[in-house]
């Protein structure tokens, strides 16, 4: 069983489109995250949810809207995609907000053309 699963693994789309990435964890963790890894391999936190409640929003454009229907799922919807949104997006989870050991998904490579 995959602990943190993301879909799709690859996403190629045109500028201006709207797309969603889904994430699910079966670890029973309370906290989930979205990270963005750019071409220089820097990992930047975007959002964090704890028990379905947003606790971190790191100055991400409001075109990005996370949604957590329950604590096992954290989806990312992106409106009006731009070339600069091209990156690998990672979903992660941790036991709670005090945990340092994150479990990451395998990533979604988004390419905006």
């Amino acid at each position: 069983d995959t602990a943190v699963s993301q879909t799709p693994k690859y996403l190629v789309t045109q500028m201006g489109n709207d797309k969603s990435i889904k994430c699910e964890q079966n670890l029973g963790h309370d906290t989930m995250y979205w990270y963005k890894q750019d071409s220089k391999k820097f990992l930047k936190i975007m959002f964090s949810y704890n028990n379905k409640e947003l606790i971190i929003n790191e100055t991400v454009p409001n075109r990005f809207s996370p949604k957590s229907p329950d604590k096992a799922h954290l989806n990312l919807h992106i409106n009006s995609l731009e070339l600069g949104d091209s990156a690998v997006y990672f979903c992660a989870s941790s036991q709670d907000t005090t945990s340092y050991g994150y479990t990451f998904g395998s990533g979604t490579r988004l390419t905006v053309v």
Partner: protein
Amino acid sequence: LAKTTQPISMDSYEGQEVNITCSHNNIATNDYITWYQQFPSQGPRFIIQGYKTKVTNEVASLFIPADRKSSTLSLPRVSLSDTAVYYCLVARGGFKTIFGAGTRLFVKA
């Protein structure tokens, strides 16, 4: 949050011990030190965390001096499959974890 500085890359040979040092001069009292490993096309994987002195698990050891301004990840007897990027992080409360640029380790045969 304390900024971390690591070497950009390191080379090693199979069977050698590899030590990757990370500096975090502005570490605060409540900060913990955590290391992750990332293979190409995969998400980072948690390796080890510590607060002070030495921590050891089945994968690595983490050495933290008394002033905690640096830490060293030690990988015993590396193999080709240990080629990856290793991230040092300093976090005050897990949910504020921020990743730096990491160290690219190349293990040669």
